[in-house]
């Protein structure tokens, strides 16, 4: 039976959710207008006042906020509450080169942890569970978010943080951890190490994993589920909005439910900014509804996905977003073709290679080159050079049909691609443009 952390909210009829959103949106816009001069100026540029926003039907009139705004307003320019009311900051990992600092009041922390608690319960967590949080702790939101959510659920929480993989495995074994929270690439790494140590899924007490903070493919999910004998749930979030828990997967594992009592989600055309109809692939935009210290109106995430309001078998009514096709920051344009690392990952895993790979992009004689470095495995190796060449050619062909362009595949020795304990470094772009 499906379990919920807050059934009355998570399964609220959608019209009711909309009413709640409308009510909260007006308050949030007024809060930003009154307390965030930076955003007020943006509204004034468009000749808008809070009175022009009567419901979410007017949302499209409001100006966007982008990562660039966050950088310009750094550090305190988008704060909605005085320092005396704030209790915490968190910061982005700076994967994309721009550090973002977000602020929280006690109330903001509570709603964030509530969303993480919903995610843990959706993954089957109860107060009987032992939850190992192997996301980094500190400025990164992964550790603190899931830690707080796990406390709300009442689970025994192991604040392992990331790193020291053998110790992670020792804790999982010795304390019989049942739920693991970390990045998917670290989960794959832990799984690989367990396999090396001779552990089979039966020796691993885990039943579920909550993996997020980077885009990962469906095939990588299948791979992790098989190696560890668990159900692997995706969780999504951004530091700017709170951290992990903005949306999360339920037992159905078809898309992540966005916590619509706290956010309004839109999909826009990243080029024109125009709002796209349900089911379109585009850039995800969020408006916070109940944030005190860091209210963000129409914040452009640069993440590419689609939304669906179709009823979910789990009973939750909140809108679902698909697995990220990629961060638009991750998207590579190679010879004019859009390429997401997750597409390359899918091809590799489908052909039996590990999810450890590296993509090297360069420009030679004004032409982009794409080199996918893949580690050789005992399963894929044979004494016959022709056969190895054939398997390599099959990878090239698989990539060509997935991406629509020819990539070079380089087979490298095992363990030569650096393993990550946090977000994986998948792409090395050597192009000087």
């Amino acid at each position: 039976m499906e379990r919920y952390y807050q059934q009355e909210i998570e399964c609220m009829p959608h019209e009711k959710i909309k009413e709640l959103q409308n009510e909260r949106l007006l308050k949030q816009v007024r809060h930003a207008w009154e307390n965030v001069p930076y955003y007020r100026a943006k509204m004034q540029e468009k000749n808008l006042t809070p009175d022009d926003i009567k419901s979410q039907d007017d949302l499209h009139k409001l100006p966007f906020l982008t990562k660039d705004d966050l950088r310009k307003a750094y550090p305190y320019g988008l704060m909605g509450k005085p320092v005396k009311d704030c209790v915490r900051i968190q910061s982005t990992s700076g994967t994309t080169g721009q550090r973002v600092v977000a602020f929280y009041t006690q109330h903001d922390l509570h709603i964030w942890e509530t969303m993480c608690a919903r995610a843990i319960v959706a993954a089957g967590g109860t107060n009987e569970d032992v939850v190992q949080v192997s996301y980094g702790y500190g400025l990164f939101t992964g550790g603190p978010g899931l830690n707080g959510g796990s406390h709300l659920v009442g689970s025994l929480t192991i604040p392992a943080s990331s790193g020291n993989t053998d110790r992670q495995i020792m804790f999982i074994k010795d304390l019989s951890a049942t739920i693991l929270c970390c990045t998917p690439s670290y989960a794959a790494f832990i799984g690989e190490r367990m396999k090396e140590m001779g552990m089979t899924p039966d020796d691993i007490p885990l039943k579920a994993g909550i993996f997020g903070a980077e885009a990962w493919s469906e095939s990588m999910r299948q791979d992790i589920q098989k190696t560890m004998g668990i159900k692997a749930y995706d969780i999504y979030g951004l530091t700017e909005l709170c951290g992990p828990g903005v949306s999360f997967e339920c037992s159905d594992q078809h898309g992540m439910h966005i916590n619509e009592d706290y956010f309004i989600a839109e999909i826009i055309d990243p080029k024109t900014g125009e709002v796209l109809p349900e089911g379109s692939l585009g850039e995800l935009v969020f408006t916070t509804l109940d944030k005190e210290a860091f209210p963000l109106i129409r914040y452009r995430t640069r993440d590419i996905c689609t939304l669906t309001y179709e009823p979910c078998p789990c009973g939750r009514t909140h809108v679902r977003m698909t697995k990220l096709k990629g961060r638009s920051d991750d998207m590579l344009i190679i010879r004019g073709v859009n390429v997401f690392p997750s597409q390359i990952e899918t091809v590799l895993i489908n052909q039996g290679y590990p999810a450890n790979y590296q993509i090297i992009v360069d420009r030679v004689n004004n032409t982009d080159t794409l080199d996918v470095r893949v580690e050789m495995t005992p399963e894929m190796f044979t004494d016959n050079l022709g056969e190895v060449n054939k398997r390599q050619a099959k990878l090239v062909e698989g990539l060509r049909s997935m991406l629509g362009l020819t990539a070079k595949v380089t087979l490298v020795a095992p363990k030569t691609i650096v393993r990550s304990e946090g977000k994986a470094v998948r792409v090395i772009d050597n192009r000087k443009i």
Partner: protein
Amino acid sequence: MSVKQISVFLENKPGCLHEMTKVLADAKIDLRGLSLAETSEFGIVRLIVDDVLGTATVLKDAGFVSSLTDVIAVEVLNVPGGLNKVLEILHGEKINIEYMYAILGNKTSETAYMIFRVNDNSKATSALNNSGIKIMEQAEISAL
């Protein structure tokens, strides 16, 4: 009747081959034969050794990917036409040779040894046996 060959994946970069031979040297593995097939990016080293299990273990522990293959070790007379005679027999049976290489001969050098990787081990073995060609066993290779 066949012997075990160990094939090892190596990147085609300076130092890779040496890294492997060092692992074997440290484990006091005695090489009987070696052949290298390479592309511009990677290579496959095929080894015939005195201690198959020991070699497979130290290579795995050192992080190399390797595989075991059954190959045939054939005694070839160390005279003009010696190899040709063996190939004639295999050709007569329409056996395909995927690759072959020579390994160390014995001290008197009256005979040499060739390793054959063919598409049908048992057919090749019986054809050669019937023609009076000697096929080496694992223990004999280790004792060379």
